[in-house]
């Protein structure tokens, strides 16, 4: 690295008024047209931000405000006039004069297909937002056949990249498999995983920098995994639960929630949400306590909270068992 511009710290600061620094360049505004409306947004904004700024609701699955866009789910695709393919609104930035259509036939078809392809291969029963999108785009996943029964435990984790079994005419291939329960705090139900990469990002540089999980395998056999599928207890996991916080489908779930759902006692209509400050250290993270029948059943943190950006540590996320003891 060049040291040419490094400040010389040995010279004393000259007396008199300090040099005036040039003011920061004001962000320029870029004008584009979305669905016939002219929209002016700051340079560098994404098409998603631009659309949202005028109240156009663009569906997203792999996008979250507190994570780097990975643009893999492709449900946010929009049509940019002049572009050969559709473009992901979550990560494509505005360019002056762009003409964007967010509800054209092409856009609707791709969005519907994304939903159908996912719902025909993944259990989306605990993903209310996903189901709302299915209604909006009239998605009919059953067109692709009956999803295949759960794979024997470990089979999906032993896939061979570049190889697969010939399809079964009676079934649509699916990621169904048994739930991974290897610790007291949360479960991993990868039969519900849409592979949005959010948990990997939260475990990695976007939040926790722990890198306990990554995407392994390839193609339809790609999956979230620890190294060699070792249990979380043998992995680098620190149980911050930030992966659960960002999971859009309930594939990653508090063990408390999972067990209540299994027992049939999970009832969101009976739950209240109360914001408080975590009592453990001096950082001051906001906790949202989800309470049912006077018991804490789940803890989250608001995405727009300046201290946490939605992320917590093991204490804030899971250290409330003692409150429930009476």
């Amino acid at each position: 690295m060049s040291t040419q511009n490094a400040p010389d710290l040995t010279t004393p600061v000259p007396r008199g008024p300090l040099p005036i620094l040039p003011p920061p360049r004001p962000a320029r505004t870029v004008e584009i047209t979305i669905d016939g409306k002219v929209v002016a947004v700051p340079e560098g904004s994404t098409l998603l931000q631009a659309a949202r700024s005028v109240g156009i609701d663009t569906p997203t699955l792999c996008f979250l405000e507190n994570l780097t866009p990975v643009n893999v789910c492709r449900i946010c695709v929009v049509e940019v006039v002049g572009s050969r393919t559709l473009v992901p609104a979550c990560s494509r930035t505005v360019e002056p004069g762009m003409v964007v259509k967010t509800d054209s036939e092409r856009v609707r078809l791709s969005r519907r297909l994304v939903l159908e392809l996912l719902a025909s291969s993944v259990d989306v029963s605990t993903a209310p937002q996903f189901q709302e999108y299915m209604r909006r785009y009239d998605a009919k996943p059953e067109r692709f056949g009956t999803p295949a029964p759960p794979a024997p435990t470990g089979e999906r984790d032993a896939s061979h990249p570049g190889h697969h079994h010939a399809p079964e005419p009676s079934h649509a291939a699916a990621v169904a498999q048994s739930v991974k329960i290897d610790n007291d705090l949360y479960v991993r139900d990868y039969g519900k995983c849409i592979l949005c990469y959010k948990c990997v990002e939260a475990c990695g540089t976007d939040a926790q920098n722990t890198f306990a999980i990554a995407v392994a395998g390839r193609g339809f056999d790609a999956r979230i995994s620890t190294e060699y599928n070792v249990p979380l207890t043998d992995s680098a996991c620190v149980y911050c639960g930030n992966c659960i916080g960002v999971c859009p489908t309930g594939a990653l779930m508090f063990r408390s929630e999972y067990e209540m759902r299994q027992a049939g006692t999970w009832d969101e209509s009976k739950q209240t949400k109360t914001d408080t400050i975590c009592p453990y250290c001096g950082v001051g993270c906001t906790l949202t306590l989800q309470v049912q029948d006077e018991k804490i059943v789940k803890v989250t943190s608001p995405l727009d909270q300046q201290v946490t950006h939605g992320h917590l540590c093991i204490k804030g996320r899971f250290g409330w068992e003692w409150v429930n003891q009476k």
Partner: protein
Amino acid sequence: MDLHFTADEPTAEEQAAVDGVATLIRADGSKRTYLLPVLHAIQNRIGWISPGALNYASRVLAVPPAEAFGVADFYGLLSTRKQPPAVAHICDDIACKVKGADQLCAAMEKLHGPEGSSADGKATWYRSPCLGLCEYAPAVLVRTAGEKPNDQLLASPKAIDVETAMRGRQIPQPILSSSVPQKGQPGLKLLRRVGQVNPESLDDYRATGGFQALRRAIAMGPGEVIREVMASKLVGRGGAAFPAGQKWNAVRLTSLPRYLVCNADESEPGTTKDRVILEGDPYALVESMIIAGYATGCEQGYLYIRGEYPLSARRMEHAIRECRSRGFLGDNILGDGVRFDIEIRIGAGAYICGEETALLNSIEGNRGEPRNKPPFPTQVGLFGRPTVINNVETLINVPHIVLEGGEAFAAIGTAGSTGTKLFCLSGHVARPGVYEAPFGVTLRQLLDMAGGIAGSGKLQAVLIGGAAGAFVGPNDLDIPMTFEGTRAAGATLGSAVVMPFDDAVDLRGILLRIASFFRDESCGQCVPCRVGTVRQEEILHRLHCGKPLSSPGGEVVLLKEVGQAMRDASICGLGQTASSAIESALARFPVFGGKP
């Protein structure tokens, strides 16, 4: 980075394999870029990547083990599960399929046992996607791990030959010159040395005009070289046909450092043209890369060769070593103060890594997943720096442009497709191989050059451009083989695969193999491609066994909708073209009974 490891420890051999590569790591660069070379070293030494070996590699390269596992588990030629040291990869892709690959696999099942089995733990076999050895169809690559790792190519062998090679016995290797039926003919440009000049001798290369273009380029200066490449109207030969001069010019004013990457990850089924250059004229590629690096201001080049091309890799390694020792690579090339060097990366069995941004991720030691564009590699490429990435064939045109001048180059071919082109003929032709012809040659002329239709002698269909290309019929033989000519015919030139099928071939089997290929080779990142390629194969399979979900017509509607979503919404060219050959066949031929 504070990394956590399981208790698994490496063996002495595993440790030595990793340490052998670790010596290459430069203090000032990324360590992670050596992840793929390290994984190869372990695979080649042991035959698989054990938890202890992966832990050790991760520790040395400071990569989280979960991520290193994700990378190792991405590639078809690396194994994260224990497997025998000798593995035969039997190509059953389309070109080999019509030449008896399925029969060979059936014979292997009888002789050796089912795919993946091993009675004694020493050898096994797998079906493989296209090995790029289509003129030897059915082709087999036998890789044996050990202290002295070995690989053998087998041209249309019997099962017993495969078994013999798996047991370590050397089988006579096919001769390269048979890949170029035109060898020695006057008028060849790109192929003129292949099979004629010793590919290992730098002196022979120089004696046949080698490095004249480099001298000329240095005399011209970088700007003038780019001007000539622009004037030549050279477009990329990898399949996308992007103007090379425009790409080079795009990096000219960007900040340093910049990188030059040569894409030799040729994996499109039926494509063999780059292999023939890598094996037959390696110094020409080195010279071309130096000129490209000089013109674009890149001091470091990377050459990414597909893992199925061991001979190509050896030839290129030798050529680069020779050039380095003789002052054609390094800090002061030709004594003119030009600085450029080349590092080789070997792919590990992933078609997707031929996609330029996936290739960059692979070099960086990440999973070979494509990046969303923009930004383009010329803006944000390798290690986040401006990067020029060109295909092998694109680059080897450059010395000719430098010596002849751009305008003279542009006078060859047609207005929209300039220069000569390497065509890969396989399938039912009498003399399969790589042919050079000026753009504008018709499909009929190419088939004639290759000795006409073999097999039954009666042509049913021709696949142009590979699995990502399109089928045309016997009435389309006057298509001019140019980018614009194939486009006008509703096809694509792609990587210039020309694969005719005789009338005895069951096209349904070919389409199923193509669908299976894309399902295997999708990286899995984006939904339309990851699930779409699965659904595409399922629909074809149901049509094939006569068990449609609704009606055959309903299945075709579904197939087209999946195709459109993949084309419109996938991240990269793999998903965007995964349905094109299949849809083109359904549109032209009564494949599943109904009218096209």
